[in-house]
């Protein structure tokens, strides 16, 4: 049976955790991964009598984010309480924004996945600030319904970015999310780590089925618990097929069934209905009497707009033309955020070799950061040091391998390059010493000498490993040169 013409309607709600050092309404740290309930105070615990105080940095970041996605920043915004009971919400309400969000009416332009030459403009309804809840951890082992609550995350600032239902395919949703994440990391607004929960996606999806000229809308499904972009795509594909099949089978439409909430099961690759409340939740929003409305003068907005700097696209293009690196490499660096771009700029500029800098950053720097779990701003090897190191490689003063050893030492122990070189026992090897070494090796490897004489210069390579095991400071290039000269002159 052939399928009727169908349009998929997708809207996304994206929560990004703002990169503030402290929480939205108190001075507690927002650091991820600390022992449970160690980053809490009377305010974020919701203790009787405690009062919230707004974190100005969160306002600043929200405005940055809003401007990046072409939103208006209205002159007046305010706080509302969204009320519901849950153990990870210690006040019994979440401080959020209801009718006057900090950012409204924006859009994001994405590359059209179906057509390389065109773009699609995705509307953004609003973006509002709110505090995060804590985490409930349900341990039902040993037949006990034992729930634990960690309130470290409670009060962490979130920006909820709500798109218009303008997305038409899972691929467009992916393009939108990728672009949004790139914007937010680039501007230093958020880390956007889905694994750490600093970026969360809920998708609203339904179908418009064209039944011989009559438009039928299937019930809207809000899909939750998708913990990677890959899962978002998979869940949307699944949901599109499921909704069509459900409609064929039951004839359910938006008029008869409204909106439902589904979860995503990553293991089974299916969406499933989540338990629904008997009545739709009434959050009883009302203005939070503990906080004053915020006036945002247009001068402040313009000041922030002026500080936004180049967009990720502009940076990508500049890195390619300025340093001659490939589009792919520029993309990797830009996707790490503005801090990484600044680091790269500094290294490439100082060492004069943008390609070498790019390869070192993508391999060594990013690997160390991943292992150490920090960010580039606090990384142990400064851009100046890396540039110096790469200059030594370019000049032949250090081999790539030895430079890696120095880099590793610096990133683990800090300190200066000279100290590291000294600590590692790296010394410049004098040529006569090297010549003695190569002579010994040639005497011990007559086959290599024969091979080279027969025109196989590559045979020298086996000497290099032997030389380096005897003297780790041996420079492969120099060993090769000496060996070839000695064989030729023999």
């Amino acid at each position: 049976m052939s399928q009727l013409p169908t349009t998929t309607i997708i809207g996304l709600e994206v929560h990004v955790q703002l990169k503030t050092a402290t929480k939205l309404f108190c001075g507690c740290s927002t650091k991820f991964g600390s022992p449970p309930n160690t980053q809490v105070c009377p305010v974020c615990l919701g203790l009787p009598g405690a009062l919230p105080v707004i974190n100005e940095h969160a306002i600043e970041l929200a405005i940055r984010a809003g401007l990046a996605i072409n939103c208006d920043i209205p002159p007046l915004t305010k706080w509302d309480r969204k009320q519901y009971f849950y153990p990870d919400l210690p006040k019994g309400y979440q401080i959020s924004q209801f009718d006057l969000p900090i950012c409204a009416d924006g859009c994001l332009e994405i590359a059209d996945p179906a057509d390389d030459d065109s773009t699609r403009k995705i509307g953004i309804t609003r973006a509002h600030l709110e505090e995060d809840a804590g985490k409930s951890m349900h341990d039902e082992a040993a037949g006990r319904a034992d729930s634990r609550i960690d309130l470290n995350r409670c009060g962490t600032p979130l920006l909820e970015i709500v798109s218009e239902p303008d997305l038409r395919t899972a691929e467009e949703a992916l393009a939108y999310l990728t672009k949004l994440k790139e914007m937010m990391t680039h501007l230093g607004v958020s880390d956007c780590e889905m694994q750490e929960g600093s970026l969360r996606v809920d998708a609203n999806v339904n179908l418009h089925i064209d039944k011989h000229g009559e438009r039928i809308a299937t019930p809207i499904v809000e899909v939750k618990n998708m913990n990677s972009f890959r899962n978002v795509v998979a869940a949307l594909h699944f949901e599109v097929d499921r909704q069509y099949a459900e409609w064929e089978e039951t004839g359910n439409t938006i008029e008869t069934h409204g909106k439902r909430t589904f979860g995503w099961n990553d293991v089974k690759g299916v969406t499933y209905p989540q338990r629904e409340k008997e009545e739709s939740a009434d959050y009883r929003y009302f203005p939070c009497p503990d906080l004053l409305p915020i006036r945002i003068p247009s001068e402040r907005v313009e000041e922030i707009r002026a500080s936004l700097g180049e967009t990720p696209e502009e940076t990508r293009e500049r890195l390619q033309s300025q340093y001659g690196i490939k589009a792919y490499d520029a993309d990797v660096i830009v996707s790490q955020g503005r801090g990484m771009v600044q680091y790269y700029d500094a290294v490439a500029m100082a060492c004069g070799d943008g390609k070498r800098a790019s390869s070192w950053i993508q391999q060594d720097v990013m690997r160390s950061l991943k292992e150490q779990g920090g960010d580039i701003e606090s990384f142990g090897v400064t851009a100046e040091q890396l540039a110096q190191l790469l200059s030594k490689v370019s000049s032949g003063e250090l081999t790539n391998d030895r430079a890696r050893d120095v880099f590793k030492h610096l990133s683990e122990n800090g300190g200066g390059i000279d100290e590291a070189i000294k600590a590692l026992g790296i010394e410049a090897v004098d040529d006569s010493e090297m010549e003695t070494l190569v002579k010994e090796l040639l005497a011990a490897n007559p086959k290599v000498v024969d091979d080279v004489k027969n025109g196989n210069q590559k045979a020298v390579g086996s000497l290099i490993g032997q030389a380096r095991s005897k003297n780790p400071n041996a420079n492969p290039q120099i060993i090769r040169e000496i060996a070839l000269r000695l064989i030729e002159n023999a």
Partner: protein
Amino acid sequence: MLDSALEVLRLQAAGEASAVEIAERALDAIEASQSTHNAYTHVDRDAALAAAQAVDAKRASGQPLGALAGVPIAVKDVLCTSDMPTTCSSEMLRGFRPPYDATVVEKLRAADAVIVGKTNMDEFAMGASTETSAFGITKNPWDTSRTPGGSSGGAAAAVAAGTVPLSLGTDTGGSIRQPAAFCGVTGLKPTYGRVSRYGLVAFASSLDQIGPMAWSADECALLMNVIAGFEPRDSTSLDQAVPDFTLATESNDLRGMRIGVLRESLQAEGIDESIRTAVAHAIGVFAELGAEIVDVDLPHREYWVPTYYVIAPSEASSNLSRYDGAHYGHRAGEEAKDLVSMYCRSRAEGFGAEVKRRIMIGTYALSEGYADEYYNKALKVRRLIRGDYDAAFSQVDLLLGPVTPTPAFPLGDKIDDPIQMYLCDLFTVGANLAGVPAISLPGGFDPAGLPIGIQLQAPTLEESRLLFAASAFQSATDYHTQRPNQ
């Protein structure tokens, strides 16, 4: 008897009594009065004596002393104290000990005051008689068959019973002024935002304000000097300079002051004749002190109580959501099998009837489909009420009127009739809705010898003007010097 904070300061300065001796007298007085009046929910003898000892040691070593050095003070049990329980007189918070001090408590300690204990109140400050307390009713020292008023009934009775010269109350709809009137003491509700609410367990956040209670306006000024001022931890705190309030009480010359009388409000139904007489008498006293008396009206006065009883319960329903048994406070026992039943039972067991009633009213008023009709409409009326005050204060410097429709009523008289209880707030909630300061001061006695309060209200931030007029009134009258027979 420990009458006056000023006297307590003088005794110590003159070397006639140590802070420890004064604290002991206060603690003895509490012990003698507690079984009769039940003004306190918690008394900490050891902590009080230790604080007093520290004051004596400071004095002996010549260190500078705070403005309330060695003065015993009682604190309403809605203000967080890290060294004493903070219960809000609720089963929900029985034994609850906050990990921090409220800002005002910090300030009292920094001023070397001696905190003797926590005073009884209506549960979560909801009530006008201190009868909704989970820890027993408080009795009026002037007549123990009558209520001391509420919700700061314990704080008022603690002063009236002569146990302490000063106490801190809180006022959301009249909870300082009405008990002050019933107990024959002076009580000031400052401008909203004048005193930090940090550490005040919220009832209705946009209306709550902490204020001083004492026999005289002069002593209220002394305490205001300590507790008033901007504080960044309370976003609604006003970043305004704080005057020396005691300077306001130095002159008694009211010439040039225009006092508006809410004449019409006196005609309202259910107002006791003794109240009308006291207000009329106060008008005469102020006129004699040089003030010009004019008639004014606050046209939306009849909407005060309905507006208040939508806004306050709405905020309360939200503020009290945190008491869910999950993190602290009362939690239902094992019979609660799942989360929802744990919530329901904990709240059913932990809250008293009046608190539940207000949570239900507030939840209803904020519900989808009803919010426009109730909560949002109340906000609009609140703006009109503020407008009335602005208009009135463009003509006059102060407003004069009654505090309560009647003197202290008998215990049990209204506890089963919420509407009658709510009408106790008839004259007081306007100041909370408008955010203006107001003071209740002793203005006479009814034929049965019960104290009667009169109320002055001033424009925003004009506490000094209130204290000036109140002090002048007290220089010309002796009602604040009368004491109950004990």
